């Protein structure tokens, strides 16, 4: 965090004057605004780039929220955010000024990863409930510290892992519990794309601010920005966290000045020898996002908005007998994928993030702990950092007891 302050200050021009000011100050628990059930939650968004504006688009349609403030250091982003906000919403380039607004109940933070920790800490100090985009923190010490600060605050703190709120994953977890897959030994996760993963930059000075995903100074590359979801999903589905990890990564295709990996392959070891390979390749997009869960009775393949089950072909019954009488087995279910049914019949299909934001509102109103909370967020972030460290050092990284003390 310290060695490259000047560059970071360049990125965060708007907040440079205040940088560091509040971070070292003693943390004082604040009390969040009590939001009455009937009231709309007064919300501010810090960071209205592609993700923040995407969230604003969803929030605009939700009766739970009134988007009253936006903050971004890039004028186009701020304008975009305000165009999606309430009529008299305020625009800020300094997030601290947004946090000073006492009428704001909660904030969404959707900024580059390295800004998550300082912004979240400041928001907690200002007594705001927080919806913080994934992944949670830039490094391991920040993750551990944020757990303490959130717990002391009594505020609602949710991490933007929306798949924890998506019926598809609930159903997959149920299926696993009902032993449809048999004994599960492996997860195979990939988050691939065939693109340089860059946003267009008009002013060359803005390259690092806009394409922060390319630089280690601001984030953990594909593992923290893409695979984070899948690591969190494996943690969620197994109700555990990794024990150790090995990995290899490189910049072998997009040699364009980036210093984050353009390909990384890690294998996480979970309790009981369950292994999860987590891969991101930026030069192939076949089944770009996919998680395969390998059991000795069947495989589940989770794609963006559906999951398929592939039963193992077992012919144990044959050989003993000449024929089997039983309820008819549909042909379509043999050797081919069977689509997993989820959700209630006739229920509208919504963007998973809508379910996550709905639950955030519910938690704010009723002071509940979110399903995607600071501890699950910490587990995800630490796993990401371990994976990157494994690839950087080419050495096995172990989960240390103090990580989850």
């Amino acid at each position, binding site marked *: 965090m310290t060695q490259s302050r000047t560059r970071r200050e360049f990125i965060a021009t708007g907040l440079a004057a205040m940088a560091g000011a509040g971070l070292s100050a003693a943390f004082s628990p604040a009390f969040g605004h009590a939001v009455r059930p009937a009231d709309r939650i007064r919300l501010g968004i810090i960071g209205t780039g592609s993700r923040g504006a995407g969230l604003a688009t969803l929030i605009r349609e939700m009766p739970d929220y009134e988007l009253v403030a936006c903050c971004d250091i890039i004028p186009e982003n701020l304008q975009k955010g305000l165009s999606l906000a309430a009529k008299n919403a305020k625009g800020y380039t300094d997030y601290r000024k947004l946090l000073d607004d006492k009428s704001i109940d909660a904030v969404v933070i959707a900024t580059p990863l390295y800004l998550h920790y300082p912004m979240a800490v400041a928001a907690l100090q200002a007594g705001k409930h927080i919806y913080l985009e994934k992944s949670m923190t830039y490094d391991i010490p920040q993750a551990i510290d944020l757990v303490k600060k959130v717990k002391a605050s009594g505020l609602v703190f949710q991490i933007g892992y929306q798949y924890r709120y998506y019926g598809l994953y609930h159903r997959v977890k149920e299926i696993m519990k*009902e*032993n*449809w897959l048999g004994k599960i030994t492996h997860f195979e996760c990939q988050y691939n794309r065939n693109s340089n993963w860059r946003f267009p930059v008009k002013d060359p000075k803005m390259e690092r601010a806009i394409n922060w995903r390319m630089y280690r100074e601001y984030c953990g590359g594909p593992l923290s920005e893409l695979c984070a979801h899948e690591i969190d999903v494996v943690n969620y589905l197994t109700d555990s966290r990794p024990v150790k990890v090995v990995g290899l990564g490189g910049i072998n295709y997009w040699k364009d000045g980036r210093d984050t990996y353009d390909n990384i392959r890690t294998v996480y070891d979970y309790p009981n020898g369950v292994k999860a390979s987590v891969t991101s390749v930026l030069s192939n997009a076949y089944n770009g996002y996919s998680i395969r869960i390998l059991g000795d*009775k*069947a495989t589940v393949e989770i794609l963006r908005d559906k999951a398929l*089950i592939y*039963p*193992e*072909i*077992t*012919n*144990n*019954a044959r050989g*003993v*007998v*000449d*024929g*089997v*009488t*039983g*309820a*008819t*087995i*549909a*042909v*379509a*279910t*043999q050797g081919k994928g*069977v689509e997993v*049914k989820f959700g*209630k*019949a*006739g229920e509208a299909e919504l963007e998973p993030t809508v379910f996550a934001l709905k639950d955030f509102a519910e938690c704010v109103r009723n002071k509940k702990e979110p399903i995607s909370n600071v501890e699950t967020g910490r587990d995800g972030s630490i796993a990401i950092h371990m994976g990157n460290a494994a690839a950087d050092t080419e050495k096995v990284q172990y989960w240390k007891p103090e990580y989850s003390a």
Partner: protein
Amino acid sequence: MRSRRQLAGSMAIIMCFVLSALRPATIPRTYRITGQAQGTNYAITWYASRQSVTQAQIDSIFKSLDASLSIYKPGSLIGRFNESETGIEMDRHLAHVVEKSMQIYRQTGGLSDITVYPLVRAWGFGAKAADALPDSAAIRLLMPCVGSDKLKIKGSRLVKTVPCVQIDVNGIAQGYSVDVLARFLEAHGIGNYMVEVGGEIRTKGRKLPGEEPMKIGIETPSTTEFDAPAIREVITIGDGAVTTSGSYRKFRESGGMRLSHIIDPKTGFPVQREIISATVVAREAITADGFDNALLAAGIDGAFEILRTHPGMEAYLIYRKPDGAVADTASAGFARYVVKTGER
């Protein structure tokens, strides 16, 4: 040259002799035709000294059955009946199946009823899956269309007394198909065979050349719609048929409840009974298949009542006890078929 030709000639004679000695004219072997039809798998196995039946013949039989009885096949005879206002001319398949269905309708006190199709569709088990579950008002509206008493057979014509009557013979058509295939094999001189279509089976004779009886596994109800079968009991039935109806493989889930695909024609709602699998042994597969759904819908006591009044049929029932444990029971005559009890 001459001597060489002579040698070649005598070689040919010797070869013929050797070949005819090797030809297994008298040693029967196993023939097997497998494939997919009626939305499931079929397997036909017979023991004979030559292949007298081909896959093409079997497929054409299925084609003619589908053209008559399939609710999934566009333009099928049954589909045209369902769309008609008053009825249609039946072919021999439909005539046979409808006649037998109406007989079983009477014998089961209306528990087996092919006119449930409007209800089957409403509950999402028809040719197209329904989005939402029907409410009781929607079911009440459909009930006037249900009841085999609204069907009349006039010569070769099937007549509906109410235009909205629609029939679904899926509960019996597989059994009938098995009988049709069995008759086809017998017409081709095959006397030792097993015909299986989607878990409905008919056997005759023994496995040759060893003369072993044909063994049939009764499946343990699975937890999922695609589980590979595990065997609960092994039976041999000699010359006869065995079919199984189960609510464990085809169902919809709603609010944590499993809705059976077997609809009670009297209530209009999915059957919620303790029986999860009913296996019936009878002389013909159409009989066994026609009764198995009704036994499932009748519950244990009702099932035994039906069996008591219809001799010539035996049944094996797997059911869920009130505490959730799975148990089984069978009619008295069933025990003679059982050769082995599988792992539980």
